[in-house]
């Protein structure tokens, strides 16, 4: 008996809850006008392209519609992994990613600590402002500057300095020797963004309780000990969360510096996944293969992001989500 009376009750409540919801919706129509058009925009520009992933399982021909395409299953992926170019591109992507991650983190943390230890406020501010500068120029400008600095012509300052110091006897064509490329790329990335990457660490350092430093100083801790035992532990949460965020995008090694500084002589070391996609997709018109390579990258990124996040959870650290 009770059940019978209980059942219709929610049914009666349902329309009224829905009603109330619609009423609020109506009342908030301005907010809706202000946001929903952009949801539609983001749906078209960010979600619709996901539909394009289907291309990777087809033998895509641009003049046919999605449904007229020939379906080939995993053939594109099979081809990718049997392709020597792809394997080499994968190797380059991984090496470039690891160099970028490790070098990027270490240099930014070291620079932030050094800046934090500067006692003359004016000097600190000047160095900070100058170190942000290369972040605001494009990779086109940066690549121009770098390739000029590395050239063997007049104005190639790197060769000039090294020759003056008698480290080398004759100018080296830095961008013409393949196995120099990873080092050049890593250095260029540090040069461009090390200052910028210190911002978050410097902000985190202002949160460290100054009384900790005072107590350590009274106890006779040296500068280095204070850095190692107060500053670094204070940065740990920020470092962990940035590591997670960066692991998720580790394969996003970028392609601008590789594309702009790459050439036929260093292609074996400079070409990464994104350049592979560009080359096969846009230049050669093999849309299916290029999309398959892109999907591979995204899937690996997702796995890495979730692994890093759950690892951070297990170790009791802050995490992203």
């Amino acid at each position: 008996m009770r059940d019978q009376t209980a059942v219709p009750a929610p049914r009666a409540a349902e329309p009224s809850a829905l009603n109330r919801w619609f009423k609020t919706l109506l009342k908030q129509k301005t907010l809706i006008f202000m946001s929903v058009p952009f949801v539609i925009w983001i749906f078209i520009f960010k979600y619709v392209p996901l539909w394009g992933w289907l291309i990777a399982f087809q033998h895509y021909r641009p003049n046919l519609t999605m449904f007229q395409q020939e379906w080939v299953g995993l053939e594109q992926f099979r081809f990718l992994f049997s392709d020597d170019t792809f394997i080499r591109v994968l190797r380059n992507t991984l090496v470039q990613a690891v160099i970028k991650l490790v070098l990027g983190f270490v240099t930014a943390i070291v620079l932030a600590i050094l800046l934090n230890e500067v006692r003359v406020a004016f000097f600190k501010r000047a160095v900070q402002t100058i170190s942000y500068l290369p972040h605001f120029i494009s990779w086109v400008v940066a690549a121009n500057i770098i390739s000029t600095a590395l050239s063997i012509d007049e104005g190639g300052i790197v060769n000039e300095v090294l020759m003056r110091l008698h480290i080398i006897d004759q100018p080296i064509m830095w961008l013409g020797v393949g196995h120099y490329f990873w080092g050049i790329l890593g250095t260029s990335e540090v040069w461009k963004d090390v200052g910028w990457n210190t911002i978050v660490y410097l902000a985190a350092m202002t949160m460290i309780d100054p009384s900790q430093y005072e107590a350590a100083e009274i106890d006779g801790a040296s500068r280095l000990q204070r850095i190692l035992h107060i500053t670094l532990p204070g940065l740990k949460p920020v470092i962990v969360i940035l590591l997670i965020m960066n692991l998720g995008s580790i394969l996003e090694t970028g392609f601008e510096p590789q594309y702009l500084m790459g050439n036929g002589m260093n292609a074996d070391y400079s070409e990464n996944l994104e350049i592979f996609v560009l080359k096969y997709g846009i230049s050669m018109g093999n849309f299916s293969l290029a999309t398959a390579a892109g999907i591979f990258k995204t899937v690996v990124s997702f796995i890495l992001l979730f692994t890093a996040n759950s690892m951070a959870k297990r170790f009791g650290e802050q995490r992203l989500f």
Partner: protein
Amino acid sequence: MANTVRPAAEPAPQPQQPKKMHKRFQSPGDRIFDTLNVLVLSLLVVFTLYPFINTLAVSLNDANDSIKGGIYLLPRDLSFDNYKYVFKEATIFHATLISILRTVIGTVVTVFCSAMVAYTISRPEFVLRKFVTIMFILTMYLNGGLIPNYLLMRDLDLIGTFWVYIVPGIIGVFNMIVIRSFIEGLPDGIIESARIDGAGEFRTFIQIVVPLALPALATVALFTGVYQWNSWFDVFLYNSEKVNLSTLQYELMKMLANSNSNSSMTSASAFANSANSSSNFVTPSSIRATMTIVASLPMIIVYPFLQKYFVKGMTVGGVKG
């Protein structure tokens, strides 16, 4: 008023205290540390600034004289011919116009749209708040990839138009989060009192929120402006055949590509010969230096003035994101 309106996540402004302590006791170890620190940071400043100063010097030097080399910090034979030549060149002049146009329009549109959506998802009573937020946040991890995006632009008929620079980027999710965090840090009373006074949502947004959120908007404007000004890849990908839609960065990129392909034969005299035909004497390398300066100067001039804001924006958005 301006002092009371600060985001909640503001770090406590108290780093002066330890500074006072440091000054009193200075062990020899401390002094060595300080000297080394200043030395290392000065070296960083030199590495960061030298390439720009050198490029500037070359661009202001007579092209004929530059071939002899040996220009470091100052032009030896001051001449503005390189700049005159660059701006007389119709393609480059037009490309500069397009660069300015896309930077101005793109920045205004993106800042306005991002701020509007950020406002709606900062309203706790908004019924679609969760839905809208998730729709946007998810896209930070989902990416269709190069080929599907290219096909979308093709299907939307955006290829070969100016709008392909603007429409795909009208909202940056990261930017939106920066603005939202800032709005959420505003005292509740301000927005509530405007509503009690009878202002609608849109008026509250325009008249109350926008003026108060100016620091966050300035940050986003800078990020967007830098992105728009520095972009070359979308020009390359979508509009490489449209000369009248080319941008400064893309023109510079083409010059770099030319010099890269020449670099296998590398001789300053070959450059000189190819440029001899033009009316005032310029060389590709001096033009390249001039273009590099023109393409980077606007951002270099603007960013130091906004430093206070973007540092805050990076801190809020970078960790919370």
